[in-house]
């Protein structure tokens, strides 16, 4: 395979990107494509699976194999794709509404099951495509088109959630920290097992506009000012960081992935055939 540069994975014929001015999706897309190039992923052996939402359109710009499914279900499709052919690199791209709200149950079970998939969630704190309604990561007391008197629900800490569900790799960064983000994505794809990267990202058009941050730089600045590194947070009392965006690598551990475990099931099953174990009936 000739060496792949990052833009060899980009579908240039569909440019410019359809996302709004200042949307952070393109920054995450760039980080992903550079990670692909760093890892020299074979396009034929890579499947990018997307859900529905602004970020769910990312596959339009990636020239690997793709699967564009339904809202919240990307990990379901990705699970089947991966398990049916464990040789494939499977990357699921989901937004916060998609991957963590309607798809929240699939997310925790995929993490628990430890299927070798990389999930990259772009969290822009609201449903962008449908006009800026609140999602499972919308911050309390902020405004969206459906929380016009201030949001009364608390937001998911997705990394803590996925970590608790058992994923062996969990990290969070934001798009201003694009170099760190790219590093996390690269590590996550390399990781055998379920890996999860959350990218905090601006949506100036909706979330920003309703919360006094009409431009992307303003919203990125706000994310940056409210961010704290995991290392710093660990040194401070919880009260000082619990309302901040904790940035860093939460988990990076070894854990045998589903396909590897299933090989053991197949070996036992095959042995049961040769031994002629009779079928159990009730």
């Amino acid at each position, binding site marked *: 395979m000739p060496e792949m540069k990052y833009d060899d994975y980009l579908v240039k014929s569909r440019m*410019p990107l359809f996302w*709004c*001015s*200042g949307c952070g999706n393109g*920054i995450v897309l760039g980080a992903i494509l550079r990670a692909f190039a760093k890892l020299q992923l074979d396009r034929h052996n890579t499947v990018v699976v997307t859900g529905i939402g602004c970020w769910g359109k990312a596959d339009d710009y990636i020239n690997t194999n793709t699967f564009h499914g339904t809202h919240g279900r990307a990990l379901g499709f990705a699970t089947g794709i991966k398990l049916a052919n464990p040789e494939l690199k499977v990357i699921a791209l989901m937004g916060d509404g998609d991957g963590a709200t309607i798809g929240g149950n699939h997310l925790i079970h995929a993490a628990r099951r430890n299927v070798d998939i990389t999930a990259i969630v772009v969290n822009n704190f609201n449903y962008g495509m449908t006009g800026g309604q609140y999602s499972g990561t919308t911050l309390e007391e902020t405004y969206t088109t459906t929380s016009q008197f201030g949001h009364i629900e608390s937001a998911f800490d997705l990394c803590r959630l996925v970590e608790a569900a058992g994923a062996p790799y969990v990290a969070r960064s934001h798009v*201003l920290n*694009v170099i760190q983000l790219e590093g996390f994505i690269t590590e996550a794809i390399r990781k055998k097992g379920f890996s999860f990267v959350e990218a905090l990202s601006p949506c*100036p058009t909706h979330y920003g506009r309703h919360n006094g941050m009409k431009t*992307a730089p303003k919203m*990125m600045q706000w994310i940056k000012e409210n961010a704290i590194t995991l290392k710093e947070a660990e040194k401070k009392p919880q009260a000082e960081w619990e309302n901040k965006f904790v940035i860093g690598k939460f988990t990076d551990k070894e854990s045998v992935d589903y396909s590897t475990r299933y090989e053991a099931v197949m070996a036992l099953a095959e042995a049961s055939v040769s031994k002629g174990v009779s079928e159990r009936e009730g």
Partner: protein
Amino acid sequence: MNRISVNTAWCKGCGICAAFCPVKVFTQERDGTPVPEYQERCTGCKLCVLRCPDFAIQLEVSGDEPK
């Protein structure tokens, strides 16, 4: 000197490059389109390239192979 070029067909004028350039290379036109007015300041850090959400900035660092 490093050479910055902006693909105006892809750029949407969001201003991220201008706002976060550590050495303030860019000014912006009224519609937001960035202009690398102070190119001589450019240190070649490429953060503008990496942070551009529209793949619209090209940077040739002098001495580097064109990318």
